[in-house]
C-alpha cells in the first residue's frame, strides 16, 4: 500500500522562496501546500489539516508571531506544529538552533537561505513530537 504523504503548508509571500522550499519538501516525499498570507494560511490549515506549517515571521498583512497566537487559540489548528523561516529578527543561524518564544510556547527558527537537511529534520521531529503528544 502506498505510504500516505505528509502535508506541509508553506507560508511565504516570496514566490521564489516558496518554489525552492516546495521543491525541497517534494523531494523529501511531502505533499506541499502553499499560502501567501495569513488569511489563506488559516483557511488551508483548517481545510487541509497539514502535518506542519513552515512560515515566515513577517507577513504582507501582519506579524507572523501574532498570527501564531491565533492559530494556537483555534481548536482546529492549535495542534499543528509550526517552524519559522525568516531573514528578519536577527536570526542568522541557518541550522535551526534558534528559538522564537511566543507566549509560553517556543518555536524553532531558521534563517534564510535555509539549510534544508536541518530544516527537514526539524520538521520531521516536530511532526513526530506532535503525533506522540496526541497519543498520550
Amino acid at each position, binding site marked *: 500500500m502506498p505510504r500516505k504523504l505528509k502535508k506541509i503548508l508553506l507560508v511565504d509571500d516570496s514566490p521564489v522562496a516558496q518554489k525552492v522550499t516546495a521543491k525541497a519538501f517534494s523531494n*523529501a516525499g511531502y505533499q506541499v501546500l502553499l499560502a501567501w498570507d495569513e488569511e489563506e494560511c488559516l483557511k488551508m490549515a483548517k481545510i487541509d489539516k497539514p502535518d506542519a506549517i513552515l512560515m515566515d515571521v513577517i507577513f504582507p498583512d501582519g506579524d507572523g508571531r501574532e498570527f501564531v497566537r491565533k492559530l494556537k487559540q483555534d481548536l482546529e489548528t492549535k495542534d499543528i506544529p509550526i517552524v519559522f523561516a525568516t531573514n528578519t529578527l536577527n536570526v542568522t543561524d541557518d541550522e535551526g538552533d534558534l528559538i522564537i518564544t511566543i507566549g509560553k510556547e517556543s518555536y524553532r527558527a531558521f534563517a534564510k537561505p535555509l539549510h534544508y*537537511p536541518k530544516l527537514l529534520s526539524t520538521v520531521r521531529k516536530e511532526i513526530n513530537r506532535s503525533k506522540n503528544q496526541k497519543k498520550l
Partner: protein
Amino acid sequence: MALTMYQASIPVFEKQLSNLSAILKKAEEHALAKKIEPEVFIDARLAPDMFPLSRQVQIATDGVKGCAARLAGVEVPSYPDTEKTFPELQARILKTVDFIKNFTPKQIDGSEERKVTLKLRGQDTTFLGQPYLLNFVLPNLYFHMTTAYAILRHNGVDIGKKDFLGIF
C-alpha cells in the same frame, strides 16, 4: 590475456558495493554530527518522481545479486525491500557481498553466451550473458550508485569523487 566474465563482474561488484557502503557510513556520521534525523537522508530524492536513497541501494544490490546468480545459473535470492535505516542498508549490502563472493570463476566464466531472461517493465527480455553484464548490469549499478552519491552530496554530506572511486 582476455578479461573473463568473472573478472568483469564479481570483483567489480564487491568493490563498488564497498564504496557505496563507505559513502553511506559517511552520511550516517554526518547526520549524527549535524543532528539531522537519518531518515531525512534515507527518504531524500533528487526529484519527486525519482526513487529515494533507500531504494537506490536496494536496486543496486538487487542488480548485482541477480547478475551473479543468473550468470552462474543458480536461483536469484529475494530480499524484501524493507530497509529504513543506515544500519539496515549496510546489512543489505553486506548480505549481498556475502552472497556474491561465494561464486567461483568456474561458475561465472564461459557465461558470455548464456541466455538470461528477466522481466523489464512487465515484459520478458532476453539477453546473452556478456551484453547483459556489460550493457545492462554494470551501467545500472553505476546509475544507482551515482544517484545515491548525488542525493547525499546534494544534502550536504561531505563526500567527493574519491569516495565514489574508493581505493584503486
